[in-house]
């Protein structure tokens, strides 16, 4: 059975191979899981050879292993709550996520829990104000209590607009210095953008679920999917439109597709001589132009399977099977 049939099976609750079920051992408290890395760096050319299954999909959500949900928390640092709004923007998709895959165990806005509990995934929004000891304690607590720490959005990942802070604002004028969370703790993966789209949060949530609760093969797919986002986290805490110059154009990789232009939230990019030109006064250092560029990372092993993965995510959200 292929990766994707496994993937679909878990979402559709359908089992058409006898050997399929894995006993889902629900750990009471999350233990540090080894995040599986995809085997070897694949050779660059991996042709699209995925066989797409044609059988109609049934979406039987009631058969899902609801007992074995992952636990997710939203940790609010110095951010504008836009990232959380983006998560909530999934509307019924959010309910599908919360009903079937994840319990929201911590979220100052949406869940009535005061202290940061143990959890599988911490979605951290915002940068850390180092003049505020609560924030510094909270980010450390989040690292201690979460198996996977995700920098949700550009402020957590790169500082973003908070890089421009100078203090003096009511009613905490002494709050003047803000750092991306990666300057204080290890971060497992980045989901940059200001804010990250609802669809990207949905995709990462589904993949995080598979990584923690899936079969070995699902874990492998999820790890392959998440790897570039882990690489972004490993790449560092600084981002700027200049990354397109430094790591794409100067490296001889830009081919003028214009994706960066569309991705920029402040329209700081236009195309000059077939390549992006950055209005550096406009740039808020969100990092999404580089992350979205097909020449920053392009993992054939995952993207070649776009059709089947898209269907599986739709099925997970209860949209599949027309």
């Amino acid at each position, binding site marked *: 059975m292929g990766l994707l049939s496994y993937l679909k099976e878990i979402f559709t609750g359908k089992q058409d191979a006898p050997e399929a079920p894995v006993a889902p051992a629900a750990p009471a408290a999350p233990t540090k899981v080894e995040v599986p890395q995809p085997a070897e760096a694949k050779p660059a050319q991996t042709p699209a050879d995925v066989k797409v299954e044609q059988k109609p999909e049934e979406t039987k959500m009631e058969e899902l292993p609801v007992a074995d949900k992952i636990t997710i928390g939203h940790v609010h640092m110095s951010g504008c709550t836009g990232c959380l709004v983006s998560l909530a923007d999934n509307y019924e998709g959010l309910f599908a996520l919360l009903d079937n895959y994840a319990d929201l165990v911590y979220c100052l806005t949406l869940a009535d829990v005061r202290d940061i509990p143990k959890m599988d995934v911490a979605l951290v929004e915002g940068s850390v104000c180092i003049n505020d000891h609560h924030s510094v304690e909270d980010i450390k607590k989040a690292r201690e209590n979460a198996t996977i720490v995700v920098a949700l959005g550009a402020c957590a990942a790169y500082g973003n607009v908070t890089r421009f802070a100078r203090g003096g604002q009511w009613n905490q004028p002494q709050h003047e210095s803000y750092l991306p969370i990666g300057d204080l703790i290890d971060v497992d993966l980045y*989901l940059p953008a200001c804010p990250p789209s609802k669809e990207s949060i949905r*995709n990462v949530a589904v993949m995080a679920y598979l990584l923690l609760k899936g079969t070995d093969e699902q874990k492998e797919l999820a790890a392959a999917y998440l790897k570039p986002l882990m690489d972004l986290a490993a790449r560092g805490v600084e981002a700027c439109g200049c990354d397109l110059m430094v790591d794409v154009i100067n490296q001889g990789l830009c*081919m*003028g597709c214009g994706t960066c232009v*569309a991705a920029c939230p402040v329209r700081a990019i236009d195309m000059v001589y077939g390549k992006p030109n950055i209005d550096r006064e406009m740039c808020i250092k969100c990092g999404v132009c580089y992350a979205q560029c097909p020449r920053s990372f392009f993992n054939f092993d995952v993207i070649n399977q*776009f059709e089947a993965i898209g269907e599986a995510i739709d099925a997970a959200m209860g949209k599949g099977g027309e």
Partner: protein
Amino acid sequence: MVLGSYKTAICARAADPGILAKSQDGGIVTQLFAFALEEGIIDGAVVAGPGDEPFKPEPIVATTVAELLEARGTRYTICPNMSMIKEATRTYGLDKVGIVGTPCQIQALRKAQLYPMGMRSVPDKIALAVGIFCMENFPYQGLETMVEDLCNVKMESAVKMDIGKGKFSVYTERGAVSQIPLKLTHKFEQGGCHVCLDYVANLADVSTGSVGTPDGWSTVFVRTKVGEDVWGRAIGAGYFETKDIADVKPGLDLVTKLANEKISKNQKTLEERATFGVNKGLRNPYL
């Protein structure tokens, strides 16, 4: 599988002579979008519209057949179609978007759907992605040099350009043809093309190009369920004339040969980049 996965390969051309007239090859792109627009399969499509200067396209969101017709024909220079993809859904408010693009642009599109960090409202609204084959592309200034200096044709008087049979050809409004060996154009190619590992838009719903089929016809790969559905309906409605690809010359063998050539050449470039300096290499986006 250098041709990517596909359900069917066909030799085809648009049934509407009006569309065919100013199309590059079999008018597949324009005819398919026109059909999809009329049927409500798409609300509009991102295409390479006319720009300020001759043969310098600008991406536009076409919402009428008239605009699609304006965008016919290949311009051998960069047209950043992906730059309009979020405009199409957010500014134009389209729910079902079509887009045409070179293989790299279709790759960008699929990445944008799977990793849509900065692509709010895009991933679920792509209704039809048409890919065009592509061996290489040229910056506008490079194209200008090829046309004006090497082919001795003013950009304003060119009506069509094409690449085939080892030549770059420019057709003028007076009916003259000026040709140069393709070899002479290589140095004007954009560098980013030299790491490109896709010739026939492997990730499109439907991809098309001239190679493999006779003049005026196109080679078409129908790849995804979406592609199969739209193509099937267009055929059913009589929008295309088709021939069995096995019966036409030079057929898929040539497509495969060229795809292999492109990919192995560019694989080699990637390998050379890895050891470009002294104990230092250039970045590889695929690792």
